[in-house]
């Protein structure tokens, strides 16, 4: 059974190539994935991200529960509307999902989780929440549109309800504002400025049409993937999963170790791993030769396999292929190679992101 977002007819009307993704029928591109990518880097693009699931946690225990459930600490969210990126771990320290959590008010938190994992996430959250003074509501009544790019604010703001424009125009990054059922956050998954707009489903099509009329380019999942890869942002299910620790996925920065007595799920396993020494490190790779780094290609140091590409692809902003990879912690960065169709090609190891705000953030040799 394939789910359709409320915007499905809009995508088909615009000639999108539709593909199954996480149980949903979603647009891959509307003609050219690379042109959509450039639209976001240079102008403004929009993505239907209604397949992601919005989960509200409301009640006196919401904050305490999330401090147990998530590896990052919602106590860091001291102002209304502030957002936090976090992993949700299992007791072994594996990543059940990565998500954004918003502090709507002191007894109301909102999580946005990945589409493919939403059902299992919800099962996990409900089991962990048993006996708590907490109400969990899936917000299927909301659609979500991400507007991204240097002109996202200029082109997107006039399409928001009048009562919201002023406040949204003044939002700092990683903050949200709401008005009735609209909830607008200044963040995204592309490395550009922009918004994620949660909107009542009944108003989603008119918002999409307004944005299109304002010159915001509809973009599919293809561009979404190359944009997030250039921005050095992990993709759940390829860069990390239930069997992999955030410490081996470049996500150590999302773990709130302090206060030391906050007993979040997975903490003990991560502490053991940290004491023992983390065996893998997560790196960015650039291929200077012609070719494309693909998921699961092996990475070599000399003749020894030292790791694997977790997500790779072509970076339209750089004109080269790039990847995220998990390699042995003790493998030297110099001299790594990848095997592409029987040829060993040299790799440049870099620290992600590769691109931010339209510009390369890694230095490439000529």
């Amino acid at each position, binding site marked *: 059974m394939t789910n359709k977002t409320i915007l499905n007819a809009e995508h088909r009307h615009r000639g999108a*190539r539709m593909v199954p993704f996480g149980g949903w029928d979603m647009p*891959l*591109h509307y003609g*050219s*994935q*690379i042109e959509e990518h450039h639209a976001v880097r240079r102008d403004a693009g929009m993505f239907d991200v209604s397949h992601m699931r919005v989960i509200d946690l409301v009640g006196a225990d919401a904050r305490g529960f999330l401090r147990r459930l998530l590896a990052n600490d919602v106590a860091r969210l001291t102002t209304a509307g502030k957002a936090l990126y976090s992993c949700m771990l299992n007791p072994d320290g594996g990543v059940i999902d990565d998500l954004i959590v918003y502090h709507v008010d002191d007894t109301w938190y909102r999580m946005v989780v990945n589409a493919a994992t939403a059902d299992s996430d919800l099962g996990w959250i409900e089991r962990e929440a048993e006996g708590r003074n907490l109400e969990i509501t899936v917000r299927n009544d909301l659609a979500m549109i991400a507007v991204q790019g240097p002109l996202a604010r200029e082109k997107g703001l006039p399409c928001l309800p009048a009562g919201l424009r002023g406040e949204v125009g003044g939002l700092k990054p990683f903050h949200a504002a709401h008005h009735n059922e609209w909830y607008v956050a200044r963040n995204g998954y592309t490395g550009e400025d922009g918004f994620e707009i949660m909107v009542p489903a009944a108003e989603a099509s008119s918002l999409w049409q307004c944005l299109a009329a304002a010159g915001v380019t509809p973009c599919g999942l*293809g561009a979404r993937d*190359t944009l997030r890869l250039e921005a050095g942002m992990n993709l759940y299910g390829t860069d990390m999963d239930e069997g992999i620790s955030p410490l081996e996925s470049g996500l150590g920065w999302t773990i709130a170790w302090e206060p030391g007595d906050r007993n979040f799920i997975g903490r003990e396993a991560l502490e053991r791993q940290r004491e023992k020494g983390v065996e893998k490190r997560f790196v960015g790779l650039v291929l200077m030769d*012609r*070719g*494309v780094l*693909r998921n699961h290609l092996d990475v070599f140091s000399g003749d020894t396999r030292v790791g694997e590409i977790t997500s790779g*692809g*072509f970076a339209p902003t750089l004109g080269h*292929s790039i990847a995220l990879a998990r390699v042995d912690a003790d493998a030297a960065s110099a001299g790594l190679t990848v095997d592409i*169709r029987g040829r060993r090609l040299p790799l440049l190891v870099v620290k992600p992101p590769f691109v931010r705000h339209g510009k390369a953030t890694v230095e490439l040799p000529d």
Partner: protein
Amino acid sequence: MSNTPDSLRYTKSHEWVKDNGDGTVTVGITDHAQELLGDLVFVELPEVGASLDAGAECAVVESVKAASDVYAPLAGEVISVNEDLAAAPESINADPYEGGWMFTLKIADPGALAGLMDAGAYTATVEAEDH
């Protein structure tokens, strides 16, 4: 709906073949193939002078989505390759049958051309794949 010119011959693996009338053919990938692959970002072409068997892997087209082999539609020797594709692989997306040509072959057996599909047969194959 993809474009399938009547003047060309086709293979099941989505190459098109143009008879140049002088014992050589020009080869590329079809409009349907480029649509399936999405934006092309790299093309690897055969070596000029290489002798190919019919059905041999002889080139690679890499798109944002995947790498895909291109097969020699007929046995023959590579006479020339489209050097412009190195800098502009997107020509295959924009113009698969003209600017997006990949290589020419001096074919070993001119009679073998007749064994390839015509536009009608190729279109039927594509439609069968889609259903």
